């Protein structure tokens, strides 16, 4: 119980820290939102009108800082996230995010899960066949792939599968813009085809880490006494590998997986940028380019909250799954 209270405390404190960081960074750094907004509206609005517009999303440059801070905290929690002052001037931020979120969760989420499952399977087999062909080449290959820059892999894939092959696979946007969105086979096919290259980029760079850790865990688990006992009992190799070794070897990886699921929401900014994929990561990039302060604030808050929630759920799950965690807490 004490453990759970501690974790909840951590959750609240970190969320507060992120919110505060979010509030003070724009106010401490050079360049003000008023200036940014003035350039965006091409000097056509008066100073008063600008400040009024800013006030509507929580920037009251003349108000007391503490009052601003409290208002800001309240607005963030009640979902009063204001309107964009960037490319889509005046559009409510909740609406902008609702448009981008499904694309990111669909692309990055699915790719993350595929990378984890694939990496765990390959790693388990490699660790089981210690000293085999697979085991001797895999570590070197995947140490290198897991150190590759995401965006460079993306550029290579575009070069091979799109530019040199005369446009086999599309490398731009999330669907063919000549097709009307809807639940038609044509549209769904277009979405899937457009997702292949960005998803492949994420899988190629992410799978290595899972393979290496799973292989190492597997090797550690195989020298445990319970595996020896399973052998002594004369169980089949398959049963020992899946039911005894892999099952325990995967445990330390689960918290890492939970965290990477939390990071799904922040999207793969560089990948979405290279492929012009209109997800949350690309949205953040555009918000930064257009000095769209309100949108930046909300996105950063959302990204942090997603990771925190994932970590919290994982903490709870560990208490439920692992009796040792309950005992030591």
């Amino acid at each position, binding site marked *: 119980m004490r453990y759970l209270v501690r974790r909840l405390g*951590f959750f609240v*404190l*970190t969320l507060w*820290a*992120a919110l505060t*960081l979010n509030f003070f*960074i724009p106010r401490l*750094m*050079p*360049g003000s939102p008023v200036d940014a907004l003035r350039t965006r509206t091409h000097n056509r609005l008066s100073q008063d009108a600008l400040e009024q517009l800013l006030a509507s999303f929580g920037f009251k440059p003349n108000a007391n800082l503490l009052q601003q801070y409290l208002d800001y905290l309240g607005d963030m929690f009640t979902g009063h996230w204001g309107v964009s002052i960037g490319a889509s001037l005046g559009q409510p931020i909740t609406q902008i995010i609702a448009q981008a979120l499904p694309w990111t969760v669909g692309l990055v989420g699915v790719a993350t899960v595929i990378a984890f499952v694939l990496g765990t399977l390959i790693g388990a087999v490699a660790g089981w*066949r*210690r000293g085999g062909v697979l085991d001797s080449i895999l*570590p*070197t290959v995947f*140490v*290198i792939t897991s*150190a*590759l*820059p*995401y*965006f*460079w892999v993306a*550029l*290579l894939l575009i*070069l091979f599968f799109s*530019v040199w092959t005369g446009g086999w696979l599309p490398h731009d946007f999330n669907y063919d813009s000549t097709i009307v969105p809807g639940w038609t086979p044509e549209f769904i096919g277009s979405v899937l085809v457009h997702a292949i290259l960005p998803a492949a980029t994420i899988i190629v760079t*992410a799978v290595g*880490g*899972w393979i*290496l*850790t799973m292989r*190492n865990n597997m*090797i*550690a688990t*195989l*020298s445990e006494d319970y*595996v020896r006992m399973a052998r002594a009992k004369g169980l089949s190799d398959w049963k020992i590998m899946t039911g005894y070794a892999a099952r325990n070897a995967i445990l*330390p*990886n689960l*918290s*890492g997986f939970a*965290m*990477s699921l939390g*990071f799904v929401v*922040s*999207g*793969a*900014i*560089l990948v979405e*940028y290279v492929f012009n994929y209109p997800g949350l*990561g690309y949205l*953040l990039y555009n918000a*930064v380019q257009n*000095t769209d302060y309100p949108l*930046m604030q909300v*996105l*950063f808050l959302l990204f*942090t909250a997603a*990771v925190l929630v994932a*970590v919290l759920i994982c903490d709870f799950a560990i208490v439920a799954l692992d009796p040792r965690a309950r005992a030591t807490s």
Partner: protein
Amino acid sequence: MSIVTATVTAETVAVPARRRGGFWHSLARNPKAVVGVVIFLLFTVMAVWPGLFTSVSDPNALEFMPSEQPSGDHLLGTTALGQDIWAQLVFGARQSLVIAVVAGGCATVLSVLVGVTAAYLGGIVDDILSLLTNAILVIPAFPLIIIFAKYAGQGGLPVILAVLVFTGWSYGANQLRAQALSLRSRDFLEAARVRGERRSYIILAEVLPNLASLIVANFLGAALYSVLTAAGLQFLGLGDPNSVSWGTMLYWSQNQQALQTGMPLWSIAPGLCVALLGASFALVNYAFDEISSPALRPVRRHRVRRSRQRTDRG
């Protein structure tokens, strides 16, 4: 059967590692480590004496015919702006290495300070420092870096170094704290305390040497993180667009649609350099693990956690 092979290989790797000086010997015999070190040294020579590799003295000057294909004069051709690609690559090594060594080094120093202090002092200091470490660890680093770089203006080198250190230390601090905690109750530290040694002596002469291999591993990890993140940041155009670096080359090549206009080398070559430098750190780091892991059990547990570091990159 597999148990036997597993323990046998573990033993053969572990035994030389235990002998005095044997560690460097086994590092030199590990092919991954050798390849990594050779790549790193090659880039170091490039960074220190670029004149050995190219006759061009100002790689950013627009002094050649634009968009030339590779030839004897221009090994990798020229950019759409009229610069020699090979010369830019050679001169770009310097900034990437500076970022790797300075940002990686500062982040490591910070994580040693925070991690060891937290573990050694314990109590309320430990609680506060651990909270801080864990908070920084879960805040998404890449989005934060992008926002920082934007607010701080087109980020020059100091801005980039500062944000890399700020976001890069927490992972190592967590690891070092855990390792230092496990040392705290060992007999040799107890003996030093009974002898009446000063705290500073105990930390510097007794605790730190025992953390040395973990500190080196952390430096390699932080350096890898710094190189990749800085390149990503510059690629997005959030670095100084006039600097000479691989990330900036990638930015300009993307800006000029190099892939689509038949000049793939312009964007593939600098990316390959970033990848090679990153791979050199990763290879040495993994070789380190391979050599020291069977002897030092906690390291294996740490390696498990290391997978988290990858997940938070954009």
